[in-house]
């Protein structure tokens, strides 16, 4: 019986030590104190703390320097906000005479963002990248921020009468958003692959943001 147990422990090797050290750390930190509980604090504090975490992540996307901060604690609130906002702005409105203006439906934008980031993540997992599934989805979602900002700018430009000059301006803005998003996600996700496969993992990310930027440029309905 003990042999069987030992065999099991020996298989996993170093992993066991790592997992066992976690509870001891927690105990030493909170010694003598009751466990931290969100039930005891006002709702305002809870919401503000979460909002602050989202805001810090947004700041990291806009100024991508540190590599680990965005990866440490993933959440999907930021991506959800960005994705919902983009889908609301980008959706094509069908008019009375039943001629759709050609834009994507709300759900189509949603599907492109979520399924797209899942496919990109799955691709990097299949290539052998060492990153957890939701961490990667979190990073890809948060890196939509530059394209969302580009969409807001484009929406403002669209309010005035359109000229070729203004189209060129919208094009430039979306391209900057696209380059920024791709660069930021490469900073956060780039070193999770083997060097020989970096391009293979980066190309889908590039394509993902390119498609979203195409939606941003093409969005013209007023």
């Amino acid at each position, binding site marked *: 019986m003990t042999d069987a*147990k030992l065999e099991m422990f020996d298989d996993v090797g170093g992993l066991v030590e790592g997992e066992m050290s976690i509870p001891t750390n927690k105990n030493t930190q909170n010694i003598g104190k009751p466990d931290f509980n969100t039930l005891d604090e006002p709702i305002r504090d809870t919401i503000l703390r979460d909002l602050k975490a989202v805001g810090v992540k947004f700041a990291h996307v806009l100024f991508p320097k540190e590599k680990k901060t965005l990866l440490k604690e993933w959440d999907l609130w930021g991506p959800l906000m960005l994705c919902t906002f983009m889908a609301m702005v980008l959706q094509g409105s069908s008019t009375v005479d039943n001629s759709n203006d*050609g834009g994507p439906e709300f759900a189509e934008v949603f599907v492109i963002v979520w399924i797209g980031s899942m496919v990109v993540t799955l691709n990097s997992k*299949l290539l*052998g990248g060492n990153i957890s599934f939701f961490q990667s989805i979190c990073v890809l979602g948060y890196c939509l921020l530059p394209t969302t900002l580009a969409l807001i700018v484009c929406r403002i430009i669209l309010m005035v009468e359109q000229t070729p000059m203004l189209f060129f301006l919208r094009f430039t803005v979306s391209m900057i958003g696209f380059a920024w998003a791709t660069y930021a996600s490469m900073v956060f996700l780039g070193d999770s692959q083997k060097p020989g*496969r970096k391009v*293979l993992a980066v190309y889908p990310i590039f394509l993902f943001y390119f498609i979203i930027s195409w939606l941003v440029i093409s969005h013209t309905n007023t």
Partner: protein
Amino acid sequence: MANLQEVPTEELLSFHDYPAVHTSTGPQNTSAQLNLTQDSFENFSQQEEIREPLEDNPTNSASVKSFWTLEYYQQFFDVDTKDVIDRIVASVTPKRDNTLKYHLRDKPDLYGPFWITVTLIFTIAISGNIADYLHHASPQYHWKYDFHLVSYAATAIYVYVLLIPFALWGFLKWSSDVSDLEGLESGTTPGALELICIYGYSLFIYIPVSILWSIQINLLQWLLVLIGALVSGSVLLFTLLPALRLSRHKFVLMIGIMSCHLLLAAGFMLYFFHGPTGSPVVDTPHNSTKTS
């Protein structure tokens, strides 16, 4: 942790020695085992049984993986940047000596076909929109983009890249001469996965071609259709030639493969890149609503 501490240290030590015997070099260990367990042969044969699966594991692990695990699919994505580039280059350079086949020989991947088809779908949708815009380039016409070209392109491409290889695979199985069983065994008949891979890579040439299709010159568009279909179609034929030779209906198959490829190219060009006034084929519902 508590369990580990209860175990006596001697037992722990002896256990740690135990796998070391099996993982280090085989022949020396067997001799050592022989010396140790001369008196009890049963024990030795038991050890042998334990060691065999240990040694077999690394070689078999790829095929043993369950269908539902991520590791099962990792074998289809086991490529480096260099491999993919080599395969793409091979797919646009028709040579008699089967370069694409040579590159695919050991392991067909799904990375290339998947991302080539996705890229092609969006390239066609984007440049199709550009072509439509160029066609209506006049100040009084309020042009609107059509996102749903993506859906049409995706349907067409995925039908082509999944159905045709499966149909071809079935047809090759059915029509191959039974007398040539040796040929079948040696692997000249490609598997369904290999066919999908070949077809996926053969679509690569349409990515640059579809960007060029947005230039609205009729002659140039048709020329590109012919060039694209001929170049990648001939790569397809050269790659599949060893398998086709075995078939009883090889000429039917060859003509079928080429005409499907040409039809796909012509279909793309007429549907997505030709102005509504050009050809009657283009007068589809979504185009007519746009012009109204």
